[in-house]
């Protein structure tokens, strides 16, 4: 006689990724955006258990739409298995598409990326602008920060020194160090140097090192600004 094996039940916690559907049935732009996201982190979501969050898509209740969504996701090596925040009609449709309904747990909303922030209105209130003026030479190894505002240096900035500003940077002296303007993403920030010999120049995260600065602008009075996502260095007068 063969012994019947007892059924073993174990509790399991599982981390799943939730995909938030916004609006009606997912269309081509939605999948294009999803593909772009997946390309950015190709291994992160591969075969990851995935929950479709329907909180913002109350109209998505046709079983065939859900089935199509499930197929599209599976083609992208994702593993959708459930819906959450679904209405009763959606739960029925989901069951038809082979998806169960789970009760939404705590989920940390992914921090919105900066680009979204700028496109959407209602940006947080701007912090008060505090400019900073430095009248002594900035030495190698020093780091001068004007978190919210312009940074003005009257004197030299040595190689190995660092200037960081939320706004513009002005250097009235030879600039041999690094300057990072618009560090909070202000693409209108500019850098002004009386004599340019910098190691690195950056505006809103876009940078150039001394290696790829044109020879003509060296030791000249210049201003540096962003134009069409390019860092431009232009001599002054």
């Amino acid at each position, binding site marked *: 006689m063969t012994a019947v094996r007892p059924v073993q039940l174990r509790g399991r916690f599982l981390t799943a990724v939730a995909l938030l559907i916004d609006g009606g049935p997912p269309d081509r732009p939605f999948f294009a955006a999803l593909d772009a996201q997946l390309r950015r982190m190709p291994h992160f979501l591969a075969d990851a258990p995935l929950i479709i969050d329907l909180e913002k898509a109350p109209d998505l209740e046709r079983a065939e739409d859900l089935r199509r969504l499930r197929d599209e996701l599976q083609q992208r090596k994702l593993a959708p298995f459930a819906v959450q925040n679904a209405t009763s009609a959606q739960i029925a449709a989901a069951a038809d598409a082979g998806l169960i309904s789970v009760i939404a747990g705590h989920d940390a909303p992914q921090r919105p990326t900066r680009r979204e922030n700028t496109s959407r209105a209602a940006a947080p209130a701007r912090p008060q602008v505090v400019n900073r003026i430095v009248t*002594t030479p900035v*030495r*190698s*190894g020093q780091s001068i920060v004007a978190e919210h505002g312009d940074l003005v240096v009257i*004197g*030299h900035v*040595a190689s*190995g020194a660092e200037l960081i500003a939320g706004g513009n940077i002005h250097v009235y002296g030879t600039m041999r160090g690094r300057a990072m303007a618009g560090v909070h993403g202000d693409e209108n920030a500019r850098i002004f140097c009386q004599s340019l010999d910098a190691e690195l120049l950056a505006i809103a995260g876009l940078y150039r090192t001394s290696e790829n600065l044109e020879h003509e602008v060296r030791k000249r009075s210049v201003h540096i600004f962003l134009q069409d996502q390019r860092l431009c260095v232009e001599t002054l007068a």
Partner: protein
Amino acid sequence: MTSQMKQEPPVQSKVIVITSGKGGVGKTTSAAAISAGLAQRGYKTVVIDFDVGLRNLDMIMGCERRVVFDFINVIQGDARLKQALIKDKRLENLSILPTSQTRDKDALTKEGVEKVLNELREEFDYIVCDSPAGIERGAQLAMYFADEAVVVTNPEVSSVRDSDRVLGLLSSKTARAENADAEPIKAQALLTRYDNQRIASGEMMTVDDVLEILAVPLLGVIPESTAILRASNTGTPVVLDEPSNASAAYADAVSRLIGEQVEMRMESDRRPSLFQRLFGRTA
């Protein structure tokens, strides 16, 4: 006026740190020469070796056989200051406070250094601190209580950049920098191993290049010289050795340090070769 005459003593005793960041630029040689020069002019001077574990000053000063107690013994209370101070045999106004060769920089404490310096301030006009290379504990404590700084620099880029870094520390990580009411440390640059020929050929930076970057007053320019090596090897501060352009340059630097106006001379100790003497300045 003879240089032996005692001049107006400084109102308060001054702590002068000889520092550079980079090693091998001539800090200890300069500390020995400057302290001997000050003593020669009648100031009561003590020179302290802060390079714990790499004791050199006593050799440059020629008193290595007379070291019994050291700076660390005094800081830790194992010896009194009077026991550790070594009186120079050539200059009665000059004393040396050697450091320990067996310990390391962790043996230095801020409180200990302050206590020793305060005690020395009561007796001496000038307290010259010979800083170790680097910007770590030893160097930071050597500069922390300073009133003035002599930043020793060679005319080459890495030395200049390190000196610039040290100037930054002098204006941020020192007692005078932390006290908003105090005057900032008076820092001056001392250019050493200056070689006219190598500068003329573009191998080294000029005085102007260096000062343009450092943006501090120039205390002096010491030519590269065989006299320095000879003085070091015989344990004689270069200003007490045979006359040479290097010793004259140090003497000038000392004059500027005590506030005299002396014109800057830049004479090399290098003898022109026969070829150069024959053909003069054709190049």
